[in-house]
Each structure stands twice: as structure tokens, then as C-alpha cells.
């Protein structure tokens, strides 16, 4: 199935793209999506312990299931205000 990956701020700069569309296996989780992404772009791994994740613009967890057409976002530590 296909998911859209959204990347922000420095994660986006490291990936060189704000949005990617990737094929992932059925029954994938956010973790599956991330593992595929970091294999493809090893420089992203430095965010593994500090990033947050969201599915369809809701905060989520690495273990959450993803479905066809979902938008999966990886978020560096925030700095608003």
C-alpha cells in the first residue's frame, strides 16, 4: 500500500523533500515506515530518539498501524513561541 511521508524543519532539509510517497507492506506500522525511510536516508537516524510522529495530522506512536493513503509525519523537537 501507499503512504505519504511528511517531513519538517531540519528533517525535511536532511531528506531534501517535504513530502515523499512510498510503498509499504500491508499491516505496516509507523515504525515500519520509519525503518524503510532511514534505510533509504541514513542521515535521518539522528532524530530517532527525539522526534515525534503523527498519522493523518494527529500525534501518534511508533507502534500505531498505518493504512493505505495515510499521511505519516516525522517531527523534530519543536521550537514555536
Amino acid at each position, binding site marked *: 500500500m501507499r503512504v505519504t511521508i511528511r517531513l519538517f524543519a531540519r528533517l525535511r532539509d536532511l531528506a531534501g523533500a517535504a513530502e515523499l510517497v512510498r510503498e509499504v507492506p500491508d499491516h505496516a506500522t509507523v515504525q515500519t515506515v520509519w525503518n524503510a525511510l532511514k534505510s533509504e536516508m541514513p542521515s535521518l537516524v539522528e532524530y530517532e530518539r527525539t522526534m515525534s510522529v503523527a498519522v493523518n495530522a494527529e*500525534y501518534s506512536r511508533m507502534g500505531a498501524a498505518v493504512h493505505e493513503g495515510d499521511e505519516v509525519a516525522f*517531527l523534530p523537537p519543536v521550537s514555536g513561541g
Partner: protein
Amino acid sequence: MAQVAITAERLDLEALTTELVREARGDGAVATFTGLVRDHNQGRNVCFLEYEAYEPLAVRALHRIVDEARATWPDVRLGLHHRIGRLEIGEASIVIVAVSPHRSDAFAACRYAIERVKQIVPIWKREHFEGGDVWLEGATADPDDENARQAAQRIACA
């Protein structure tokens, strides 16, 4: 005017306040906070800032802050507007307004709101300084982190 917003437009504290105090005949206190872009940071001379948001999630996070504040201070009405895009020195990046019957709750909710913005709202700033630029990174956003929420509440001095 919406109670919460992520916008590329110049922020208008007065308009947001006017909206919140309309028919606020029982409210005696308005506390506000405005964040301004500073000309220096960590020893660097700042030229301008660039704010980026994951907009739909940022709007939800702002609504979450409003809901959290209402749970603690039921009489407070809160407004939060955050600006994105390029901001020059001295411009406002965020305005927060808290309207309440009593000043204690207004101050506490206003302070709580800015602390929570810095914890859980998916917004990032890139600092353009003399000689380069850098993404600033603060907290790992986790709205379910109850320790972080309680830290914000302690700082709010409720």
C-alpha cells in the same frame, strides 16, 4: 476572528482581545503575552526568523491547550495566534490572551499556554544570523507526557 490560528499575517493582539472580551461583562481581568523576534540569540546576531508549522496538527495542538486550560481554569477564555513565515526583528511571533473574572486565573492560564505551546505545538523556527542559519529545536513534542504538562502548570503559578 478564530480563538486559535496559525497564520502568515501580522498578528493583532488588540483584535483578538476585543473578540474575547466582547460581552465579557463579568470578567475583570485580561492577561496577555506577546513573543517578539529578538536581534540576538545565544551570542549570535539574528537577521530574521523563519517559522514553519505542520498546520493542521498545530491548530489541533492549540485547541488542545485551550481545552487543557479550561479544565484547570474553567472561567478563563483563551485565545492563541501563532504566526509563520518570515519574521523580522521586533515582530510578534505569538500572541496569547486570557480573559477571566479574576486576575490570578488570567495570569496563570496565559503563562500555562505559552509553556505548552513550546512543548507540544508542531512549529519550528529557523534562525538566520550573521554568517549562516540554523533550525532551533526545543522539546520533543508529546502531548501525553503528563510530567511536561505538570511542569507547565507549576510554572503557571496557579
